[in-house]
């Protein structure tokens, strides 16, 4: 097998750190040097190279491509890899899909979600060559049988696919260069799926390791991360029903001869031990994990094999004992019960728990290692059998996971917490996918690295999301702005994203600090932002998020996920589950949506940060129930309407250097808008309109700068009351009718009259004017016309002459409009 058994191997970084993430306290490297003490060889593996990774089966180490190398805060060396899988890792029934013979040297580009791509560097054995081949190509005959693999297709857990040209070329490149492409991790397309999440993965690992720091078991750290990998892969493997020949290796491992001979590193012992357990029963990861945790807590002396260089079989036994101790301590009494039961009944029946049985027996100091081993050999064979039966059921991989045992489930539930703690953002369901929320349990079964995005949820409803709706492209290219005015108009459009948000620096800073502190602390929180429309609430929040994302990219901040929910863009509040826009529309009778949302950050481990935006300042008090309001917390911020100076600054900053406006013109707009609403949108709209007017007016002449006159015209256009104009342009009888309405109001002293009364007045007025009075039908028509314009408020017309009429505008306005005639 490999060299690891014989000698101590030293892993060290190659070169200086490429980049660092201060917040995560990780350092990235471009290569690693593996120094073997015995053979005194030194190999350097760089990013992009293909490597062999230790698996539970020493005969067949995993093949992977090295994507990233980094050292975390605890000086643990990690590597991020892209897995390749052997044919034997693929379920036999699926292998049939290929319809061809699979060479043992053929590997598949692994796209199965759920594998931990983060491994400890100590598991790296050596570098190998992986050559991508076209589908039809024959495997070339090579001398170096061990060192070369071929990849033709990808495997995503369900079916085989030909390598995408992109992947192919990238792989080819990597093969040619023999690695050493520092940016290959970015260039490899399928890995892009992984890379954005990488940081989060780091976070997870970090937190896991932290937990283990308590245990003072240095070795367990990396072994744990590896064991999680091992168990993952292994359980999957088991689920897939591959008869792994691990038993053999285990035997070797457990044999006293080997353990006497082998000067194992403690870590190796643990590692192999883990493998051991994992190999025999897929349930074992949980006890091993437990062990790590509980031993520390209980304060049981960590019998560190590494501190005793001469590892003996006794050592191993002691180790096992401790393990079994911890098993007993573990809360899964159910498992223990059943294992006990199994022991009582027959060992052979319950192969799944046979490991425990064995360990129990060892604990009870029935020291007959050989016979036990034999027994274990038997059990392992049986496991293979049972698993193949399971496989025959053709259960989904995930279901297999769940079906396997309670212990794996409870483990997963244990992990859920971890996940939630570490990456709450991921759990938050995007409002855009209207699929049923993936059960957290399911996603947590896998390590959080890939799963949330890639897990195919079987019950996904027909979402049009996978169809890509798109507005057709335009036939002609959009014209570029030709003149200064057009340029200015473009800049003044509300949709144009300004480089900075003037006049909102304070608010920006406040929100930024709020979110940043929460992000750094890893806590959750709520902030309520209110303000009248057009005061830059959404823009500021978006700006904050943008700069935070920038910071996260530069590794100044822990990475986070941003989800925007706009109440107006939802039809049903229940579809909204992090940033809420237009909060007041999320109001439902029981307010459970908001309750859940705002309750979330108050949960202990959640890292959810909510920025709620609404127009109403006292929304929490007014419509929210107490329990909702109290959860919203006290962080409030209200955006004041812009003052004219601020508006002026906004326009100037938008225009930047484009000279299209007179200073006075800008000031006029700003003052006018500030006096009315302080709505920046309105301000920009007026300016834009002014440029149009200016352009229109100056078509003949050359002057191309927006002057006061243009702005005034635009303002008039937008703010002038339409009523006066409408009345002035109404027909004569319509005007007389309005006069009649006024007269009738004055006569009756009530601001409401029936058409019959007004008709009499109308006839009288007509007589004064010396005009022919209209008929009743005409009057009715006039009345309904004015009603349609909403100059009048009119009752439904089935009452004919008795229909009541009211003015929709003030009497003064009407008199004013009529007087000028």
């Amino acid at each position, binding site marked *: 097998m490999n060299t690891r058994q014989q000698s101590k191997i030293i892993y060290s970084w190659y070169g200086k750190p490429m980049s660092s993430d201060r917040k995560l306290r990780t350092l990235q490297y471009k290569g690693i040097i593996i120094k073997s003490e015995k053979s005194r060889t030194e190999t350097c593996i760089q990013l992009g190279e293909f490597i062999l990774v230790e698996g539970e089966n020493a005969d067949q180490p995993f093949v992977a491509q090295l994507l990233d190398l980094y050292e975390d805060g605890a000086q643990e060396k990690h590597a991020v890899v892209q897995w390749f899988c052997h044919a034997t890792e693929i379920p036999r029934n699926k292998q049939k899909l290929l319809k061809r013979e699979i060479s043992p040297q053929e590997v598949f580009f692994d796209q199965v979600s759920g594998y931990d791509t983060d491994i400890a560097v100590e598991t790296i054995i050596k570098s190998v060559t992986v050559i991508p081949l076209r589908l039809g190509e024959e495997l070339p005959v090579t001398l170096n049988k061990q060192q070369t693999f071929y990849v033709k297709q990808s495997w995503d857990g369900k079916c085989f696919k030909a390598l995408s040209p992109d992947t192919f070329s990238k792989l080819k490149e990597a093969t040619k260069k023999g690695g050493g492409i520092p940016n290959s991790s970015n260039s490899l397309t399928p890995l892009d799926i992984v890379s954005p999440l990488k940081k989060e993965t780091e976070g997870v690992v970090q937190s896991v390791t932290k937990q283990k720091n308590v245990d003072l078991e240095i070795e367990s750290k990396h072994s744990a991360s590896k064991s999680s990998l091992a168990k993952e892969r292994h359980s999957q493997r088991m689920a897939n029903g591959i008869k792994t020949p691990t038993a053999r290796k285990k035997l070797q491992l457990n044999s006293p001869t080997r353990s006497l001979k082998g000067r194992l590193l403690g870590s190796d012992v643990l590692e192999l031990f883990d493998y051991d357990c994992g190999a025999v029963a897929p349930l074992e990861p949980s006890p091993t994990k437990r062990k790590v945790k509980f031993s520390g807590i209980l304060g049981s002396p960590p019998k560190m094999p590494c501190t005793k260089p001469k590892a003996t079989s006794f050592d191993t036994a002691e180790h096992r004992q401790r393990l079994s101790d911890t098993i007993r301590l573990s809360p899964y009494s159910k498992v223990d019960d059943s294992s006990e039961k199994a022991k009582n009944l027959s060992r052979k029946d319950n192969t799944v728990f046979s490991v425990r049985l064995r360990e129990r027996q060892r604990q009870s100091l029935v020291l007959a290692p050989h016979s036990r081993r034999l027994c274990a050999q038997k059990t392992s064979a049986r496991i293979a059998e049972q698993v193949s039966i399971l496989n025959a059921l053709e259960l989904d991989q995930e279901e297999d996971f769940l079906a396997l045992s309670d212990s794996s489930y409870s483990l997963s539930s244990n992990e859920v917490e971890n996940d939630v703690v570490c990456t709450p953002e991921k759990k938050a369901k995007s409002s*855009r996918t*209207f699929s049923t929320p993936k059960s957290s349990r399911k996603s947590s079964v896998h390590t959080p690295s890939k799963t949330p995005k890639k897990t195919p949820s079987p019950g996904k409803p027909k979402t*049009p*999301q996978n*169809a*890509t*709706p*798109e*507005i*057709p492209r*335009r*036939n*002609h*290219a*959009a*014209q570029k702005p030709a003149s200064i005015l057009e340029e200015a108009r*473009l800049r003044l*459009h*509300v*949709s*144009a994203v300004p480089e900075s948000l003037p006049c909102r620096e304070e608010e920006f800073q406040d929100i930024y600090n709020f979110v940043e502190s929460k992000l750094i602390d890893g806590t959750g929180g709520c902030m309520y932002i209110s303000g009248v*429309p057009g005061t830059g609430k959404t823009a500021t929040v978006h700006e904050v998020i943008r700069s935070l994302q920038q910071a996260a990219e530069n590794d100044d901040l822990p990475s986070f996920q941003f989800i925007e929910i706009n109440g*107006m*863009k*939802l*039809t*049903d509040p229940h579809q909204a589950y992090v940033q809420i826009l*237009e909060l007041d529309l999320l109001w439902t009778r029981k307010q459970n949506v908001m309750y859940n949302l705002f309750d979330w950050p108050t949960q202990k481990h959640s890292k959810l940060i909510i920025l709620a935006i609404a*127009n109403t300042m006292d929304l929490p008090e007014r419509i929210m129930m107490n329990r909702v309001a109290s959860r919203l917390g006290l962080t409030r911020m209200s955006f004041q309407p812009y003052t004219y100076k601020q508006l002026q600054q906004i326009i100037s900053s938008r225009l930047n250097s484009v000279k299209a406006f007179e200073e006075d013109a800008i000031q006029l707009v700003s003052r006018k808008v500030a006096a009315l609403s302080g*709505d920046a*949108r*309105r301000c920009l709209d*007026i300016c834009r309109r002014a440029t*149009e007017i200016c352009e*229109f007016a100056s078509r003949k002449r050359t002057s191309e700068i927006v002057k006061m006159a243009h702005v005034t015209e635009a303002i008039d*256009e*937008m703010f002038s009351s*339409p*009523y006066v*104009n*409408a009345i002035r*342009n*109404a*027909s*004569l*009888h319509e005007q007389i009718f309005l006069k009649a309405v006024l007269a009738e109001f004055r006569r009756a002293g009530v601001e409401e009259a029936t058409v019959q009364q007004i008709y009499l007045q109308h006839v009288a007025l007509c007589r004064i004017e010396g*005009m*022919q009075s209209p*008929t*009743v*039908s005409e009057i009715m*028509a*006039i009345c309904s*016309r004015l009603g*349609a*314009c*909403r*100059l009048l408020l009119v009752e439904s017309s089935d009452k004919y*002459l*008795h229909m009541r009429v009211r003015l929709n505008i003030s009497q003064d306005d009407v008199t004013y409009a009529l007087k000028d005639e």
Partner: protein
Amino acid sequence: MKTSAMSKRKSKESGGANGECISQTFRNKVSELNLQRNCKLETFSCLKVQKLLRERFCHHYATGKLFGMDHQYRHLLELLKRTIVHGESNSALIIGPRGSGKTALLKHVLKEVKEMKQVRENFLEVHLNGLLQTNDKTALKEITRQLHLENVVGDKVFGSFAENLAFLLEALRKGDRTSSCPVLFILDEFDLFVHHKNQTLLYNLFDISQSAQTPVTVIGLTCRQDILELLEKRVKSRFSHRQIYLLNSFDFKQYIRIFKEKLSLPAKYPDEAFAQKWNNNIQHLSEDKTVQDTLQKLFHYSKDLRSLHLLLMLALSNVTVHHPLITASDLHEASKQYRMDSRANIVHEFQKFVQRKAHCMYNFEKPVVMKAFEHLLQLELVKPIERPSVRTQREYLLMKLLLDNNQIMDALQVYPNCPTDIKQWAASSLSWL
């Protein structure tokens, strides 16, 4: 039986006169044919004129000229051009009373825009009508249909409203200013969209128009002057406040010109001589005093061009072969017809009603009176004050008269042989009312 006997007799008579009349009949027939041909020609041209003008009055093709809205026309045209050519998003409202030519304006502008070279086939139109799309769900479905996006969804039936909205927003979000095809949303009866729940559709449309997504222009047509007050504050803030007012702001001189324009035959008219004659006649008409009076009355009554159309339509229907040109009296008649009080011509019914009032004198039988009364109810000349409950007997229902005294008086005067006591009753009892 009777008819067959008659025909027999006829055939006998004709049989008898057969020999003598044969040459006479032939001559007659020839002259008749000549006449008919002339007639046919005239009828043809007359019908043609009628057809042409009727189409002008009834259909709102974007063929006729627009009056008094040059400014608005240019404004809207520029607006659309900017969206289509530059990809600038906008939103605008066309506001004006009924019949002020909002739709006509839009159609004219669209027609011109489509004729432009750089525009052709370069934008998508979505027409929505508040009367048809009564809620956001149906509106969204209609938008999806009109944008031809349903084929993207394939055979999948659209699920919920939410999915629909998300789908559409996704579609519009994908685009950007320079590369996507501009979309023109035309919302007829805009005021009805305002009443949709939360104004979700409007919010989203305006939001798209204010963000860097697919360029859209939202144009709403409404007759309500208070439309802006109906918009929710956040919707209002996103609206870019372009308002195009159409107010029929022409005076009477222009009105006369419109009248002339509307009746004139186009220069391309095939029968040039006839067209000349017709147009000259129209010119004379427009200078005629009575015609001007008639038009003035209508103008005072309503500036709505549709009422003018209606009047001209009535006059036009008098045009026949023998009466090939519209005269002043035609117009006058038409206006009379047009201005007729709908309720005044139901005199005899009213008379019966009055007879009931004079119940005691004439002592009609009860069923007769009840029948007359029911008739009045059906014509809605009287109306129960409250809803007829089962309890009260019909004889004792409180009723409301839906007529004005003047109407009654007018009606009685027109009524030729009105019984004198009814006249007396009217004179005495209506005078104090």
